[in-house]
């Protein structure tokens, strides 16, 4: 599903944020991505959803070569990927419902189907009662759960979650993990970038560890 060969990337002239990263994830795999702050976790995920082009190396995601992908193909790539952004990236003036419905509307789902799916996913993340609130009216944890709901509502083949439990207590974090496990079980590949030691201990999975932009561990 995901293959990286000697990938380096960075921002501007500074020292590269990632250097010589190589690993691969099979379809249906579940992996944690960890490492200290500034190690390059977010940068790595950005490469996977084609928001950043690698400076060198090859990236294959779902059969597409992202080092060479055309601008016009990116939307179609992203439709098979669900991303939970570290800073959420919600449309702050729109409601929770509208935010979560967006990926389905983009895919042209009929209105009825959109309603059904969004309502059910909001119940799963515990936001059924807040669906008509605007995103800017949510608590931090509620925003995070909205972002998670939006990432998985379209049942994507690849889920990239960047620190999805940073604003959640352990109980909710556990529920979110169950949710990710479930869609992983249904066949989706899942990558979760996290600092949360509790999560890593509670759910032992393959763990990729970054440090200063280098892959230093893969267990």
């Amino acid at each position, binding site marked *: 599903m995901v293959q990286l060969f000697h990938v380096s990337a960075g921002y501007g002239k500074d020292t590269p944020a990632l250097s010589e990263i190589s690993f691969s994830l099979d379809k249906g795999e579940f992996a944690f991505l960890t490492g200290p702050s500034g190690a390059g976790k977010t940068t790595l995920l950005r490469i996977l959803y084609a928001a950043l082009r690698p400076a060198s190396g090859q990236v294959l995601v779902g059969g597409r070569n992202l080092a060479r992908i055309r601008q016009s193909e990116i*939307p179609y790539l992203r439709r098979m990927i669900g991303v939970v952004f570290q800073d959420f990236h919600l449309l702050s003036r729109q409601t929770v419902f509208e935010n979560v419905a967006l990926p389905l509307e*983009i895919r042209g789902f009929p209105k009825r189907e959109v309603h059904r799916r969004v309502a059910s996913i909001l119940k799963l993340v515990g936001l059924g009662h807040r669906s008509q609130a605007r995103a800017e009216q949510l608590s931090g944890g509620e925003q995070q759960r909205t972002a998670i709901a939006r990432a998985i509502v379209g049942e994507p083949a690849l889920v990239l979650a960047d620190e999805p439990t940073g604003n959640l207590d352990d109980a909710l974090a556990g529920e979110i993990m169950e949710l990710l496990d479930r869609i992983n079980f249904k066949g989706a590949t899942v990558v979760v970038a996290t600092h949360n030691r509790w999560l890593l201990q509670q759910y032992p999975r393959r763990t990729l560890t970054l440090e200063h932009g280098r892959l230093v561990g893969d267990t």
Partner: protein
Amino acid sequence: MDRLTYFLRRTTRQLRGASALSTLSLLTCSVSMTIFAVYALLFGNVRDLTQAWNRRIEVHAFLVDRLGHPEVQELTHRVEALPGVREVRYISKDEALRDVRRTLGDSADFLEGLDSNPFPASLEISLEPRYRHPDHIREIAENVRSLPGVEDVEYGEAWVRKFASILSIVRVGGYLLGFALFVGVVFIVSNTIRLSFLARQEEVNVMRLVGATNTFIKVPFYIEGILMGAASGVLGLALAYAFYLAVSQRIDVSLFLLLGGERFHFFSTAESLGLIALASALGLLGSVFSLTRALRQT
């Protein structure tokens, strides 16, 4: 169709999220459309007025007293045959007196004391448009003067020259200014719409990040731009109409009639619709510009 209503729904959703922004830019665009409309209104009227004046450029030939009917007819034919003459109208002595009476109105009393009619008969000679130029008029006037039975010729040489200059200034200056103003309005409207979109770059980014195609992102913004443009066109026209009412009440009707017989008039329906279409096009243009820029970033 279904798709269109969907996009319209999304447009209103977007507008609701940015009401202060949209209101400000709508107002700014409306005001600049108003400026343009008011200018077009004034320029259009002045141009019509000068054309009406132009049509009035005539040569008057005063005839010697007691000219018989056959002589007048022959003279008329000879004048009509001159190059550049469009029409010749005979004003008899009686008609001349009546005209003067009508023009003077109440102050015509002193005419009552006259023994005989002191006003000469005359020919009013209107000219082909091409010949309404100071040099041509003088030539025609001299030709007419040399004909038998013509006592004197009048055409207000100085006035005609001045008038020709005014006309040329109004034309050159007016169109130049109009063009500058047009460019300015295009600029203001499209920039204002870009400005109000710039604040929403984040929105565009989010949509791209979740896999929206450019078309999906653009259409509601385009619709918004068109709606905004059209609304500012309508508002601009309304304000221009208010200006029209204010001015046309302040300027004597009689004044305008005196100046050339043309009433101070508002845009025709077709012109109004054209202006609204122009405004909509500018709104679309503004959104196209801003989105092209916004979408270029990853």
